[in-house]
């Protein structure tokens, strides 16, 4: 599998990252709980979610954080290095329920988006600052964040 590597020189302030669409559904949340070790019932028990004042089962903040990390690492390629990352869970997100054993019902699709806000050289490192975030199906930014990556240079 050959993947194209992006170089620091290819990027300008304002360059947008390819949008990464995601669908949060019950099955994904259960898999995430097992894989990450986060067994908080808030993410699989509706009644517990209601008792916590969030209306029901909510998507793990850390799952949305992992989507954003995927957005950035996909774009920076194997030669890139993520130096800093930060995100805040500002809005709650609710997973789709399942239609079949492995297909979610129709519903919301989340979009992970990012763009370059700063381009600079720090010592030997060719750096880019990014503004990133997860938008819900209504176009609301529920999980804004920032990242700094080092890309390889042609120079």
């Amino acid at each position, binding site marked *: 599998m050959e993947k194209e590597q992006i170089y620091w020189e290819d990027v300008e302030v304002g360059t947008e990252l390819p949008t990464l669409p995601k669908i949060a559904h019950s099955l994904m949340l259960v898999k*995430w709980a097992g894989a990450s070790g*986060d067994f908080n019932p808030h993410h699989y028990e509706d009644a517990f979610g209601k008792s916590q004042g969030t209306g029901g089962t909510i998507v793990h*903040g*850390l*799952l949305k954080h992992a989507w954003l990390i995927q957005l950035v*690492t996909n774009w920076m390629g194997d*030669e890139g290095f993520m130096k800093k990352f930060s995100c805040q869970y500002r809005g709650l997100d609710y997973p789709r329920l399942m239609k079949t054993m492995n297909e979610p019902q129709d519903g919301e699709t989340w979009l992970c988006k990012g763009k370059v806000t700063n381009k600079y050289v720090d010592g030997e490192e060719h750096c880019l600052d990014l503004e990133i975030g997860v938008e819900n199906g209504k176009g609301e930014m529920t999980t804004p964040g920032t990242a700094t990556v080092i890309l390889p240079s042609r120079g």
Partner: protein
Amino acid sequence: MVPDELKQYIGKVDPPHVREVEKGAIRRYADAVGNDNPLYYDEEYASKSRYGGIISPPGFFGWSAKAVAASEGIVGLMTAMINAGYAGILDGGMSYEFYLPVRVGDTLVVSPKVKDVTAKEGKSGIMMICQFETTYLNQNGDPVAKATQNLIGRKL
């Protein structure tokens, strides 16, 4: 105002946990996220990369959530929050500084600490914001990453 029973946790440092970074754990994590980069599961592909082997996606350290959430400081502070009436606990956000890639076979020394507890006026009244800082060192003693997580307690 942060109640004294919460304030006493500020600065609490837990004994480090030692965790081995496992190939299967990374694969399950990447699969759960829907991240199909072969760097995270394909030995042959990863061996030809700059890393020379499978690495973990940034933000996953083998058993991050479990290792950190089980720390005495966090468990103690979360229990104290619930007892103080701040029983609606939500994750507020995460930030990292990354220094080195996490590789299969690394043994990480995970050191969690309660960095701060602050009070903030939110939409639904006073919230407590607990900040946890976790550092990760590898088997050579080199810093791999520093993570800062905010957990928010609200009155229900």
